[in-house]
């Protein structure tokens, strides 16, 4: 098969309109939500499992590498496709196939948008719990690849806790099923291994998710603090009382400014930091715990504590949190997100390090993160067009990730390793650890045709070199 025949063959499968091979069109498939950029060889948008399987088979026979893409909202370069690779994009596979109210599950295609699923099942009195900040745009297929989190994962766990079965296409086009309705599967939990494999094991084509009943009561607090230290103390105090809120989020002064530049989320402009805390459960339970939460906030130096009066006010408070990354565009055109996790008790220490690194490197860093589970998101804000700035940001990021590892934490809470964090893997894993991971991958994808060059360090942090004027990034450049 020649490369021309290859394109003709996949066109026969999906139709002419859904194979994109003109460079001017490919310009819009070369990015995700972060800083990397690379023009794929071609993009194909299949409509169903059969098309995915046939396209994958053809690509396999042609010896091509394949990268999956949901909505392109990722923050680790997971969907960035090398020039010699084929990108399979899933926006057309966006049907909610079934909602089972008895078993409390939904069967969906991978292109379904996270929030669309949640809104749909709310009509049945249920919810889909994982709620990444990009939930208005991100797809469930992408959520599985990255094992996406979100504010409410503090109480309910990340994507892996809510996906119970999958239909998956392997690198050679074979369709297999992992997991299923039964609570406990016999044998190895291959479903568990697959979630978070960042598109290197296979491509998901159907997803069976677990749904939760809607809570009786939801109460949202905004704790306003003069500085980030006292806000950190408050986090420990709340958790120390034995309370597990549904969500416990920190937003620092710079992030408040970014958000308030565009939308009035109801955060005071002069606060040093705010905490967004949500309690859910039975009325009596929430009433009881509310008192404890408020006391903990006041005791640790809150300047004010507000409670959302109604759904509209709650919505407004959350919109601020969930649009913060996008709002960084009001401060600088690029951001690089560090997704490190530290034990909750080390939050204050870690944030001091962030502030010290920010000063020493002369780089602006905003903090908006899942304080409850110690998942930091120091976000470096810069203009990648300034020479040397990217290298500077990467060096600062390296120090932060080293610190996370030193404090007993890890590299990524929810956004994946992808391209951007791969060179940092040795901070937390030995060569033997990583070789073991590769052997697991070989069981799924022996030819390593799926999203190669991601997750594991190879000293390349591959530079998209196809266009001299393109943004080039590289840690070891």
């Amino acid at each position: 098969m020649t490369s021309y025949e290859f394109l003709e063959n996949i066109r026969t499968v999906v139709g002419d309109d859904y194979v994109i091979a003109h460079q001017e069109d490919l310009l819009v498939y070369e990015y995700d939500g972060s800083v990397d950029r690379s023009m794929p060889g071609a993009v194909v948008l299949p409509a169903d499992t059969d098309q995915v399987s046939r396209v994958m088979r053809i690509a396999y026979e042609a010896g091509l590498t394949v990268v999956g893409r949901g909505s392109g909202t990722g923050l680790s370069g997971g969907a960035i496709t090398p020039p010699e690779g084929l990108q399979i994009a899933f926006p057309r596979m966006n049907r909610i196939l079934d909602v089972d109210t008895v078993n409390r599950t939904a069967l969906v295609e991978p292109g379904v948008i996270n929030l669309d699923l949640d809104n749909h099942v709310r009509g049945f009195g249920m919810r889909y719990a994982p709620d990444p900040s990009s939930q208005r745009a991100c797809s469930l297929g992408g959520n599985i690849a990255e094992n996406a989190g979100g504010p409410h994962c503090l109480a309910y766990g990340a994507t892996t806790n809510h996906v119970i079965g999958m239909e998956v296409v392997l690198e050679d086009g074979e369709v297999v099923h992992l997991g299923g309705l039964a609570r406990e599967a016999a044998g190895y939990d291959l479903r568990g291994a697959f979630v978070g494999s960042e598109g290197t094991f296979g491509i998901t084509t159907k997803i069976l998710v677990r749904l939760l009943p809607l809570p009786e009561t939801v109460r949202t607090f905004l704790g306003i603090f003069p500085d980030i230290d006292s806000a950190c103390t408050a986090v420990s105090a709340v958790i120390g009382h034995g309370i597990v809120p549904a969500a416990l989020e920190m937003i620092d002064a710079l992030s408040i400014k970014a958000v308030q530049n565009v939308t009035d989320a109801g955060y005071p402009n002069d606060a040093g930091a705010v905490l967004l805390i949500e309690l859910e459960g039975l009325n009596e339970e929430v009433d009881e715990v509310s008192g404890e939460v408020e006391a903990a906030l006041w005791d640790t130096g809150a300047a004010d504590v507000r409670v959302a009066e109604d759904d509209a006010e709650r919505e407004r408070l959350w919109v601020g949190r969930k649009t913060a990354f996008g709002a960084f565009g009001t401060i600088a055109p690029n951001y690089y997100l560090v997704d490190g996790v530290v034990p909750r008790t080390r939050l204050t220490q870690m944030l001091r390090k962030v502030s010290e690194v920010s000063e020493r490197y002369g780089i602006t860093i905003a903090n908006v993160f899942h304080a409850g589970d110690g998942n930091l998101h120091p976000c470096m804000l810069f203009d990648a067009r300034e020479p040397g700035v990217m290298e500077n940001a990467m060096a600062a990021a390296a120090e932060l990730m080293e610190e996370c590892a030193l404090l007993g934490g890890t590299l990524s809470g929810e956004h994946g390793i992808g391209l951007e964090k791969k060179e940092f893997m040795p901070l937390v894993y030995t060569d033997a650890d990583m070789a073991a991971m590769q052997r697991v991958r070989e069981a799924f994808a022996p030819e390593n045709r799926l999203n190669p060059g991601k997750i594991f360090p190879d000293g390349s942090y591959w530079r998209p070199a196809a266009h001299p004027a393109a943004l080039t990034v590289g840690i070891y450049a």
Partner: protein
Amino acid sequence: MVSAPDRHSDAGEHMGGGIDAGHGFPYGLPFEGSLNDGPGFAGSDAPAEADLYRCVHCGLCLSACPTYVETRLETESPRGRIALMKAVHEGRTGISDRLVSHWELCLQCRACEAVCPSGVPYGRLMEHTRAQVQDNGLQSPELGRLSRLFLRTALPHNGRLRLAGHLMRFYQRSGLQQLVRKSRLLSLLPGDLAAMEAQMPVMGRQFFGARGQVFPAQGERRMTVGLLSGCVMPLMQGDAMRAAVRVLQRNGCDVAVPPTQGCCGALNLHAGDLELGRRMARRNIDAFKQAGVDVVVTASAGCGSSMKEYGDLLHDDPHYADAAHEFARNTRDITEFLAALPLDTPRGQLPWRVTMQDPCHLAHAQRITEAPRQVLRSIPGLDLVEMAESSLCCGSAGFYSLIQRDMSQRLQRRKIDNAAATGAEVIASANPGCIGQLEQGLRDAGSDARVMHVVEILDAAYQAER
């Protein structure tokens, strides 16, 4: 600039006539066309770098975009369109027909702008991009023709518009249209002209011809408002204009219709004709200044949106910058104006089931969604029901429906289906383009429902008091 080999010429050079299967394609897949050496952005009306780089491609706009929702293609999304603008700005590629086709499929509904966490001024970026496209003569032939025929020749001139309106009304009401449509005459016209005939807006029975008049307030006089009569609305929807005058009078306003005003220029601006748009803006600023009104009110959401942006449009005009800002500050959509008053609550019962269709330039560009609903809820007996996707564009979008017929009709059907699902007998709107588009959609669907401007419904409630 990198120009990759095109699909057919690269075979010998790069592909060696094709590489055997099984080893991938080390020279990459064959592109079907490359980045081009066409013209870039230039001049003072180029999209501003600060606007472009405010977009951090987070993707939160995708689900709000009607053309993305319909096509599922990133090329037809706000984020994709901005990426193409950035590519031109960075000199990676020039403006080409292909890029223009993606930009022209944009409805300029600005739904993306309303949900953008970073506040990217997408509407302004698209207007400036289209200005660059027009300057380089790279508009699609359909848009170019329409632009010459209508946007420049007719819109700015009240007399010509009126004449055209009279001719069209004669054509439509004399039976001539029926005759022509039955004959084979239309098949002799070029394709897009024949289609334009089919899409021709239906002229109202009675034009609104009150330019130069002042209608006195009823009861205690609150203030003098200047009403925009604009361009086509008095011809197509004279009833809505007359209803607007009556409800303003009823609520204590002297209503002046300044004689020297004209079209607000919105359609010219959207098409990228910034210079003509500025001239039209200056004319209206002068007209309303001479009339000495307290506020400028419009019953057309699209016009209100543009008029509120006059300050931005003329910001570096030494003579008009201040007046333009003041004009923009004093402009109100009529639903916004009424909702902010202590509205004289109608006592007439209207036992109607009504659903609100949010015009894009009201909901997204002006961020007004509550005001029209507040007005409707004040009417006794009226049952206001929400439709799904009430603020997703109906596909009218100025002249879009003439140029992008396929997409326009897809969105029209989607809107009519969503409205029909509510069981409403009246679709309320607040923009002449939407009203025309919805009327046509209802006719095509054989529906008994009708479309009314919010002020027509309020007016009907006042009339029902008798």
